[in-house]
């Protein structure tokens, strides 16, 4: 059993980049609100998880997802603005370090999504044709995939899995709760 302890070292190799990066992280942390602190720790981990190359950086197009993984809900527009409206190519190729990422995350945290549960329910009520608290799943798919910042099919499939009842209807209050629960 003893030898098992040893292998840990090589495994850590995937993370060492994050480890040193973590060190400067607490440095800027004290400046903003103290509540940001718990974020930082997980941020370090999350950031590391998204680094596929191993250069301690992540691609621009991953930034939004990291923020989301960290519990934020920025719109694509918010993130785009934050990144200075990069082109599609830049999105794929440009990379940012954790130090660069952290202030961005902070900005998003400081300007959270204004709308809340009530707003979403009201918004979806618009599509409630019968006024019985449900909308057609198919309709919701269309709404989410054609309006605003369109979601793709895979995203919608992930969202809607198991939400439709036997008639293909979705209770949108429950749906919104479900989405906002994670």
């Amino acid at each position, binding site marked *: 059993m003893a030898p098992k302890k040893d292998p840990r070292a090589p495994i850590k190799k995937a993370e060492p980049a994050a480890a040193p990066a973590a060190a400067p992280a607490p440095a800027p942390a004290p400046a903003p609100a103290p509540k940001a602190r718990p974020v930082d720790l997980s941020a370090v981990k999350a950031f590391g998880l998204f680094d596929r190359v191993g250069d301690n950086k992540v691609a621009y197009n991953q930034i*939004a997802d990291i923020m989301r993984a960290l519990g934020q809900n920025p719109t694509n527009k918010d993130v785009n603005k934050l990144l200075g409206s990069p082109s599609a190519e830049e999105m794929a190729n440009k990379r940012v370090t954790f130090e660069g990422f952290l202030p961005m995350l902070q900005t998003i945290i400081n300007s959270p999504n*204004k709308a809340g549960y009530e707003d979403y329910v009201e918004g979806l009520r618009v599509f409630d044709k019968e006024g019985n608290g449900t909308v057609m799943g198919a309709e919701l798919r269309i709404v*989410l995939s054609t309006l*605003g910042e369109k979601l793709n099919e895979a995203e919608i499939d992930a969202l809607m899995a198991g939400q439709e009842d036997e008639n293909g209807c979705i209770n949108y209050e429950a749906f919104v709760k479900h989405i906002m629960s994670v």
Partner: protein
Amino acid sequence: MSDADKYLYGDRSGMSNPLAQADWASKKQVWVPSERLGFEAGSVKEELGEECVVELSDSGKKVKINKDDIQKMNPPKFNKVEDMAELTCLNEASVLHNLKERYYSGLIYTYSGLFCVVVNPYKFLPIYSEEIINMYKGKKRHEMPPHIYAITDTAYRSMMQDVCFLCANLSSGESGAGKTENTKKVIQYLAYVASSFKSKKDQGSTALSHGELEKQLLQANPILEAFGNAKTVKNDNSSRFGKFIRINFDVNGYIVGANIETYLLEKSRAIRQAKEERSFHIFYYMLSGAGDKLRSELCLEDYSKYRFLSNGNVTIPGQQDKDMFSETMEAFQIMSIPEEERIGLLKVVSAVLQLGNMTFKKERHSDQASMPDDTAAQKVSHLLGINVTDFTRAILSPRIKVGRDYVQKAQTQEQAEFAVEALAKASYERMFRWLVMRINKALDKTKRQGASFIGILDIAGFEIFELNSFEQLCINYTNEKLQQLFNHTMFILEQEEYQREGIDWSFIDFGLDLQPCIDLIEKHSGPPGILSLLDEECWFPKATDKSFVEKVVQEQGTHPKFQKPKKLKDDADFCIIHYAGKVDYKADAWLMKNMDPLNECVATLLNQSTDKFTADLWRDVDRIVGLDKVAGMSDSMHGAFKSRKGMFRTVGQLYKEQLGNLMATLRNTNPNFVRCIIPNHEKKAGKLEPHLVLDQLRCNGVLEGIRICRQGFPNRIVFQEFRQRYEILTPNAIPKGFMDGKQACVLMIKALELDPNLYRIGQSKVFFRAGVLAHLEEERDMKITDVIICFQAWCRGYVARKAFAKRQQQLMAMKVIQRNLAAYLKLRNWQWWRLFTKVKPLLQVTRQEEEMVAKDEELQKVKERQLQAEEQLQQYETKQQQLNAEKLALQEQLQAETELCAEAEEMRARLASKKQELEEILHDFEARLEEEEDRVGQLHIPTSGASGQIWRERTAEAGDG
């Protein structure tokens, strides 16, 4: 049913399609004027001061357009709306678009505020059946999709509610737009609704005669059409006259009679037709339908022989003139018009044709006309019952009064020809008028006036040609008047609605807008209007059309609705700015048309005709303007006609009076307006030419109506709907829980911070100025989009976090795998490990034992279960045996019972026979008893005989004693 539904309700699913909605909101869609399509959809890309860059939706082309030329597009919520007054962006483009979309979906009826707009479908639609009539019966207008029946029912109801209320259904539109068809539908509806009541309520003696009246009412149309309709380029069955049908009802709402008045018959058609057009139907019906006997009686000839049928025999596809003739004759029968009158009518028709065949020649030495061949004249004389010599003389050299004397004045060839043509026209017109009078007589069943009536006006709309003549002036004048009525009605109704809703707002009476133009035409004096000037000019000796124009310019030159032509002089003589647009008039032959002169001598001859019918037609000869009067103008004869002033009336005067009466009637009614629109000139179904339709919309006042609408608060929404749709815009304005609709709306509007001038809150609805709703709709869309975007962000967060969680799990798993792998790599060369790997397969043995144990256990379990099962089986078997035994016992018992029963039966039989025997014995004994009794009786008789004898002897002894 479902088929009809398609043509009534249509498919409005696009209305709430969020996609279309989003498209509209995001693209800022607008209408851009287009040469080809009237308007094209586009979206504003950029705004540069006065101009806009618009990308056309279809072609993707970008065009620069002045901002004023752009018209806003309605939100998709308003797609194919049933009432265009609801449109929030009220503009030409949107109206056209809506009509077009509806038309392409087979929906031909659309409301536009007070109007009902109908586009000729050019095909049969299954929406006129009795079923549909029943669907519309008694329904309110907004309950059902637009239909002529809905309008008719509204008229009928309002007539019923208020006994003295009168209704008129006004349809006007271009030739071929479907006015007459819709008029017929109205009559069909009324005939059905107003008589079906009857058959239900009192099936008494009157029921039958009423049924007949309705039949006659429906039959009046084919007759009028035969004589008054013709094929034109635009329309195979074009009415060449206007009519006002008045259907009278009694207090119970049953039809009690009808009356038809006709206007402006195009009588010139009887003598001349344009290319590819026909004269009045009756000519063709008669020529192909009359039998041999009738042909000779009417002196009929072949089509090609008649000069007045310019194009010979033109046939109408899908119509057999021959059949139509017999149908018309049948209609006469139903109308109970007797044989001799029918023949009389046809004789006049034939005579009109014959008149055309009279030819004149100029005499060699003088200007005088002569008639080398008088066959035609003979036929005419025969048909009309006049003397041929008198007739010829009256045409060639009529007697004319000069001063106090009569002189014979020879006519030139032109004069003679003109006289004959005038005579033909007049004959036809008189015959037509007589026919209408006769139909009215047939339809007028009651002596007394009905309690109320529904009037149906079927008259042509504005006519604007390159150059327009007297006829156009009359029809445009009529329309000007009708439009005034419409504007005034709209004013009244709007005001009522505002009052009902308790809204303070002053509506402008746009009826007054039209007064100047009407004055320009009809004013009697100071300065006199065009019609008066024309009449005046007719009295002047040397007057010509030109002098008339000069006078008009002199008197009315400064009138705001009057314009002198700016173009070359011979193009037009003057223009009138009608509300439908500027109309160029050419005053050629107006004096002649206004006086409508006739050869007096011939008229007198006809008046004295031996044919009763003809004489009847020409009863009122003294009202005629003599030909010589007109001739006098060019011949500079000294004002001879002044002597007859006041005896006759001009066409203009008569028409003005007729129209005046009509308007007086209409003004007392509750009018409903139907506007018919012709979609294309090719008589093709499913095709709509945008410019043609736009022109008509402009001419028939639909767009004008919209303009007026825009002055008020055209968009009205009931509180409930307003709240439901726009509550999203005012998230916290309304407190939770129940709230009164009006209160909620007040709060919402307050929260919306609208300019108070943009809305009014009534008793049940919120009123908005045009365009406000579009704005709200836009905001609503933006709001929804905003919310959706935020929600999508949450959704993305949800998905990302799920994915992240998964990845973390994967990371964990990866770590475990890596750890184990690393351990293995380390251990690989460790001797103990190697030993372990060697030994490990052997370890399998111990494991086998373990397995055996497990298997044994399993076996044991299975065995137990087996045992249990067997036990159970046994139990069941014994149970079965028991039951079987029981069953056997029961069977035995049954057997025993049966035997017992048999025994008992036997016993019973035996007892019965015994009883029989005993009864027999009893009988015997009874017989013997009887015998014995008899014997006892007999023994008694001798004893009684003996005693009787003793008694007799005793009495005898007493007698002796």
